């Protein structure tokens, strides 16, 4: 018969064991069953399904892009919190606090470099991830909504980058705020032309809300800071949660209907969990209406998410981290001269991922900065609702036409954008031919809008030619990618002082 004191002593000795058991109820994850319970009973891991299909693990299925984007976000999150120790969001000191981070703070330059490279990588990887999901036709039922969430994530990611490079209050930051705020005001291009700005001025309101003042100053900086460190990261985190949860609820990653057969026969050691396809949804005691995506499917070739999926994800995370650190070691994040409201840089270029937009904006502020981006985002968002075919789901370039159609669309997409650029660069545009042309004409008829129209018409033609909505989607998306890439390259490499065309930066006039 032990005394209270003896039991107290035993309890003290057993604290680590009981603590461990209290946290992980299922014991060590050593068997498939306990591993499944481990994932199931863990708040963070249970965003995974307990078992993942073997198709998920093929390199060509995802290229690891989704996890890479998440990893880049986590890296920016960690380094961003560190940078907040020293950054001061006030015009007079913001620039000097970045200088401090760069030259005085221990590891400050290194952390800022990593933050910058992870952010760049995130933008790039999010774009490529979108292309992967599109080309493998992974947006199809029941994954339409997750594609929509993904578009939201793309927009928030670009917003985070934009608000991020405004904070150092250098020349890039100041003129990017100027241009960004005036793009927000650009609906005036239309309301002015209609003569209704005095009583209906959404552009002016947008600019005012963004800047918090009539001029660019402390109010504007604190607003962009708030967006960058609080509003947009929160929005991103919520959307990410939904995005991952939906992957699980939509039945894992998209795969061909005959994925199991293509993977070949399972090992003799694999024990069939089910022998017949379930006919209804067995969760929450079957009170939930409708069927889950697993209903009607035969037992599939799955493996426990722990350890297989976790190891793969950890590998991608480490690779991403390595990439960011390596880039941070070889290349420093830029910091230009202190903001000078009297003299913009010449040329004043945005970061690479916005230079395609800058090219469009150089035709019309409203259509290039708001109209076409809105149309593109809406068009991309609608893809899974306009293409509801089943053929080719989960396969690269799946669907009618396949790779050949992608190649043809690439020719059309590149041809159209290069032709429009050639005309605009060689011959100019309406304003040079007819200086008193009404602005509303140029707003709606400019190289950007004509290009968007050509792409839209081509994709409609694809629907007719191949008698398939997927063909139209393939045409549209491929054209969009070609346009984005070409406009970005033109903006990065071929534009010089006064946004003039130069074959090489070496040809820029000295200034």
């Amino acid at each position, binding site marked *: 018969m032990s005394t209270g004191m003896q039991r107290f002593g035993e309890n003290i000795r057993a604290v680590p064991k009981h603590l461990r058991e209290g946290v992980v109820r299922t014991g060590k994850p050593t068997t498939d069953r306990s591993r499944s319970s481990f994932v199931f009973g863990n708040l963070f891991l249970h965003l995974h399904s307990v078992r993942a299909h073997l198709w998920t693990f093929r390199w060509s299925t995802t290229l690891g892009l989704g996890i890479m984007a998440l990893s880049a976000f986590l890296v920016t999150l960690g380094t961003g919190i560190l940078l907040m120790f020293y950054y001061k969001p006030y015009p007079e000191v913001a620039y000097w606090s970045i200088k401090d981070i760069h030259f005085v703070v221990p590891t400050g330059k290194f952390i800022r470099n990593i933050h910058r490279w992870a952010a760049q990588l995130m933008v790039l990887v999010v774009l490529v991830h979108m292309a992967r999901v599109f080309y493998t036709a992974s947006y199809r039922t029941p994954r339409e909504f997750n594609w929509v969430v993904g578009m939201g994530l793309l927009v928030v990611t670009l917003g985070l980058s934009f608000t991020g490079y405004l904070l150092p209050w250098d020349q890039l930051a100041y003129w990017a705020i*100027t241009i960004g705020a005036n793009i927000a005001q650009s609906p005036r291009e239309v309301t002015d*032309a209609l003569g209704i700005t005095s009583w209906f001025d959404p552009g002016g309101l947008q600019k005012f809300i963004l800047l*918090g003042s009539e001029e660019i100053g402390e109010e504007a900086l604190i607003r962009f800071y708030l967006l960058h460190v609080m509003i947009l990261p929160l929005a991103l985190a919520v959307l990410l949660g939904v995005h991952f949860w939906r992957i699980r609820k939509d039945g894992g990653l998209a795969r061909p209907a005959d994925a199991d057969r293509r993977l070949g026969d399972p090992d003799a050691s694999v024990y069939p969990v089910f022998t017949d396809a379930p006919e209804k949804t067995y969760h929450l005691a079957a009170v939930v209406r409708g069927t889950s995506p697993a209903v009607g499917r035969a037992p599939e070739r799955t493996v426990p998410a722990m350890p297989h999926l976790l190891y793969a994800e950890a590998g991608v995370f480490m690779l991403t981290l390595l990439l960011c650190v390596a880039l941070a070691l070889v290349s420093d994040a830029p910091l230009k001269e202190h903001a000078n409201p009297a003299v913009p840089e010449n040329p*004043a270029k945005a970061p690479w991922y916005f230079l395609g937009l800058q090219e469009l*904006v*150089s035709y*019309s502020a409203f259509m290039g900065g708001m109209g076409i981006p809105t149309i593109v985002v809406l068009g991309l968002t609608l893809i899974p609702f306009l293409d509801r075919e089943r053929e080719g789901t989960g396969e690269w370039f799946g669907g009618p036409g396949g790779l050949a159609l992608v190649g043809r669309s690439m020719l059309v997409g590149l041809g159209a954008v290069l032709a429009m650029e050639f005309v605009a660069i060689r011959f100019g545009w309406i304003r*040079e031919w007819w200086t008193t042309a009404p602005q509303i004409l140029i707003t709606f008829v400019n190289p950007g809008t004509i290009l968007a129209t050509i792409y839209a018409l081509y994709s409609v033609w694809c629907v007719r030619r191949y008698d398939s909505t997927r063909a139209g989607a393939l045409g549209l998306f491929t054209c969009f990618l070609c346009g984005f890439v070409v406009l970005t390259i033109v903006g990065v490499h071929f534009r010089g*002082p006064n*946004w003039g065309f130069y074959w090489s930066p070496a040809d820029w006039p000295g200034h």
Partner: protein
Amino acid sequence: MTTTPMTTGAPRSRLEPPPMPRRDFLGLAAMWSAISALAFAAAGALRLPRAAVVPVASRKFRVTLPDALAPGDAFVPPGRAVAIFRDATGVFAVSTVCTHLGCIVKKEAAGFACPCHGSKFALDGSVTKGPAPKALAWLSVTKLAAGSYLVDEAKTVAPGTKVTV
């Protein structure tokens, strides 16, 4: 509170629910009251980011033109986005804020050029090239004394308005 069972009409099956009882109606009314109260409160809170009073520094400044300023040459006071001209008919000031997206245009031989998106303007501010939707604004100029003028960047005047020298 208990609900009184509906007694009118034929006995109903589970699949044919009775018309909405008073209790459900009150519940729905309460829910929509709460939703509209929250929506109203949120709309009120959204008013916050738009300040009622915005301090803006005066944008008037005094300038003395150099005697050597030739017609067609611009005098740009340091730190100001204004180009001031003097010709035989008078003195006038043209804003150098691009009407496209707000960059500061640079005076060139034939007019102005914008470094950001390539707009070009004639000396009188009218657009000759590029995406700018409007001509550069002409700004209010007042003569103070011989060679000395007051320019107000916040006040635009009709193009062609000049002050006699």
